């Protein structure tokens, strides 16, 4: 079994604690061994790039440099964290002069990172490729029972460093959730932007972007939105009320991390997955399919 260095990122500590809980639960269940990077630091999100480029790179590279030398892959669930790790590794590989600068900075802390030493992967990739269809299907308890999910990838997992999925119309989360028994709805805006930090600095603009995403999910008949980024989850979930207020709409769409949906499919208890931490509650939608969970737990449900 491959072990992966694990970079949780700041959000998973606090606002996206549900992501953290569900990632750990799901990985434990699937035998994916995550080894947290010792004393990791913030990746600087997008803010640092516009502030100070070399510090941004050095902060990210510090995490890469601190990865256990025995591990060859690192996975991050947070989209921005994943992007940053991948971006700096790629930049250091392609532009040797840049790598040299970063390593000079790292050397001040007694660290060094050899570009390309670790392979940076998003967790969806680990589930899709390494765990794979067969094991996921086997592990599924059938408890999703056709839950209608809108797969929302957001930007930074699929752009610009996604080598193995489409950056416009990605399919990997669709596939994983389908294997696990969800009914993945057509969601053409699946890789469009949620506004990111605009919700904090320019609300009105962010609200419009959020509205488009909610509207499309609503039209497609989704019961929940599954996402893979703490920022997306925050914007779609926590700001949903204010968006409704702003536009006079009445969307009621629970927004879960995709790992929470996967966890439900694997029969993991909702509390363990952090379900309930979302502002727009998902329990109702899950309950509509939940009777079968109980049945499954009691053993004896026929899978149609």
């Amino acid at each position: 079994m491959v072990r992966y260095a694990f970079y949780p990122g700041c959000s998973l500590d606090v606002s996206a604690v549900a992501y953290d809980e569900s990632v750990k639960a799901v990985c434990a269940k699937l035998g994916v061994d995550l080894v947290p990077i010792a004393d990791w630091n913030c990746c600087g999100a997008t803010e640092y790039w516009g502030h100070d480029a070399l510090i941004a790179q050095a902060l990210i590279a510090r995490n890469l440099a601190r990865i256990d030398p025995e591990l060859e892959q690192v996975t991050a669930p947070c989209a921005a964290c994943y992007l940053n790790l991948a971006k700096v590794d790629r930049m250091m590989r392609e532009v040797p002069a840049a790598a040299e600068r970063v390593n000079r900075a790292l050397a001040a802390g007694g660290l060094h990172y050899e570009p390309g030493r670790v392979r940076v992967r998003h967790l969806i990739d680990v589930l899709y490729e390494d765990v794979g269809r067969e094991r996921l299907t086997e592990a599924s308890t059938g408890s999703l029972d056709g839950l209608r999910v809108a797969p929302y990838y957001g930007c930074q997992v699929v752009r610009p460093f996604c080598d193995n999925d489409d950056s416009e119309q990605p399919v990997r989360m669709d596939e994983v959730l389908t294997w696990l028994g969800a009914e993945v709805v057509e969601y053409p805006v699946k890789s469009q932007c949620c506004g990111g930090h605009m919700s904090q600095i320019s609300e009105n603009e962010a609200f419009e972007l959020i509205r488009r995403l909610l509207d499309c999910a609503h039209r497609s008949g989704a019961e929940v939105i599954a996402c893979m980024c703490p920022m997306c989850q925050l914007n779609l979930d926590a700001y949903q009320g204010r968006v409704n207020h702003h536009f006079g709409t009445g969307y009621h769409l629970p927004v879960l991390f995709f790992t929470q949906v996967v966890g439900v499919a694997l029969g993991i208890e909702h509390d363990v997955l952090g379900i309930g931490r979302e502002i727009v509650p998902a329990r109702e939608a899950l309950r509509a399919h939940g009777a079968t969970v109980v049945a499954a737990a009691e053993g004896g449900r026929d899978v149609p």
Partner: protein
Amino acid sequence: MSRRVGVYVCHCGSNIAGTIDCEAVARAVGERVADVAVSRDYKFMCSSLGQSMIQEDIEKEKLDRVVVAACSPHLHEKTFRRACSNAGLNPYLMQMVNVREHISWVTKDQVEATRKATAMVTGAVERVKRQEALEPQYVPVNPATLVVGGGIAGLQTAIEIAEFGHPVYVVEREPSIGGHMAQFDKTFPTLDCSACILTPRMSEAGQHDCIHLLTWSELESVSGSVGNFKVRVRKKARYVNSEICTGCGVCEEKCPIKVVDDVFEAGLGIRKAIYMPFPQAVPKMPVIDTAHCIWFVRGKCRACEIFCPTKAIAFDQKDEIVELEVGNIVLATGYDLFDCRRLPQYGYGRLDNVFTSLEFERMCNAAGPTGGRIVLRDRETEPRSVAVIHCVGSRDKRTNEYCSATCCMAALKFGHLVRERIGAEVYSFYIDIRTFSKDYDEFYQRVMDEGVHFVRGRVAEVTDVPRSPAEEGKLVVQCEDTLLGVQRRIPVDMVILMGALEPRADARDLALEAGISCSMNGWFTERHPKLDPVATMTDGVFLAGACQGPKDIPSSVAQGAAAAARILGMITRGRVEIEPVVATIDEERCSGCRICNALCPFHAIEFDEARHVSHVQASLCKGCGTCVAACPAQVIRGAHFMNEQIFAEIEGLLADAWSDVSEPVAAFAAGGVDD
């Protein structure tokens, strides 16, 4: 070895003399380099006066070698070779130095430019002293020609050669000749009916005594060289006896299996399991699609056989290999259309009413799947607005970097057709409109007059997700209108994607077989992009049409005709000259180690098992010198690029470095460089 070398430094007006002190170069070389009998500089060496200066010197000064320092040998090597030849000096005893393109035009510093020129002329003198007289060789030319590809370009070549009574074999992989042009409805900018101008050509080719059509056939292998190629062609089984089939079409009518026609109808129409791709097909003879025919799939049916009035169905037919001997080969294999699914932001394959240009062509064609009606995928609704997106898969580093050259005009044609036939609004989204040929820009203006809306901006995406009531149920084309500097979303009913022209998927395989090369983009490489766009690096292999690069019909026809003219010239001459720059193995000294054997892509090196030595077949050798450089025993000799010659040239180039080491040595000692 004592030689009498003449050195001539050209001023090229001020092109060279403006940067290089030509007189100083001539003087330095004349004084310092051994065996230089004459060293002159002159205003224009390529002028008749310049040439006669060389000729007079050869005669009067008894020169046995000549160096001309002027422009690129690619421009004037022939000129000066001829000048020497006329004065009785073997042309291969002349060496050119390119002091214009390689020095004066690229160097600012006049001192350094003059130094570089002196070094390079010295190199050439040292080299030319060791050059040898070479004589060209000749081989006879087989008058038969092979044309690969039965599209308009290939047909043009075939007909023009056949008109002179020489045999031509046309190999076409589809069941009928005609190519892409047969699929089109109208041709720009004249709006001629494509079929009306093409089909007479097709039948002319089909009926010509000298043209042998090998349709439903593919090229297997090519061997031999210019004048005498041997070609193997696979004639795929049609399962129809060509001797007795009359092309009546009863089989097709009776066949119960309907198949989506992905080739001729671009997926928009239906054909049968036994079919002719289109009614005017040449030869007028069907073929059985074994992937769908019930007999081949399940061993039942045989309806075609039962109903065929001449009993022409032959289920037991086998592929057949035909061997041909030809003197020349023309590649006219055309292009593939870009797979628009590769740009998912445009929605092709996901959004029903996004069409490719070829689909739209078929839709416009009266003989096509909609009978010429412009309708949405439901085959009923006429669109009220149509978007035409240019550059889909062109001018894009992520797909194809080049401009596909034809799509702007085709897009204009589509705009015209929509306006004319259904009066719908047309939005044409372009980066730049390229209407480069005769009457093309006039056509652009005409289409503008007809009310087509032009939006300058590469489309970002096509979506069916509405943001406003006006967008409900529409396809929304989102782009930046770069002339306004704002983002626009334009709702339409139908989108047409002007997909790029791409090299055939198997172009590289064919190139390898024919011994020619492909550009980075995959198009076949011509001999010279300006001065010889018809021939290739392999003598006797010519190019016609879009296989060499995106091309419209007139250009393809012109190139096809040009290839024919070149070949007719060779047939008329009856023999071809082969450059004497070839490798020879000193067989006395070859130890048969066989290092060189696998190195020649032209298969010119063979191993003589009996004598245990390797041997170069001069007629196949292209003179690249790779084997010469590889021979561990150094017993392969590369004419005109021999080791002694190149070593001497290096010595001459570095004469200022090695003839006086004391200066660097002093610096060496003093500097104590510790790198």
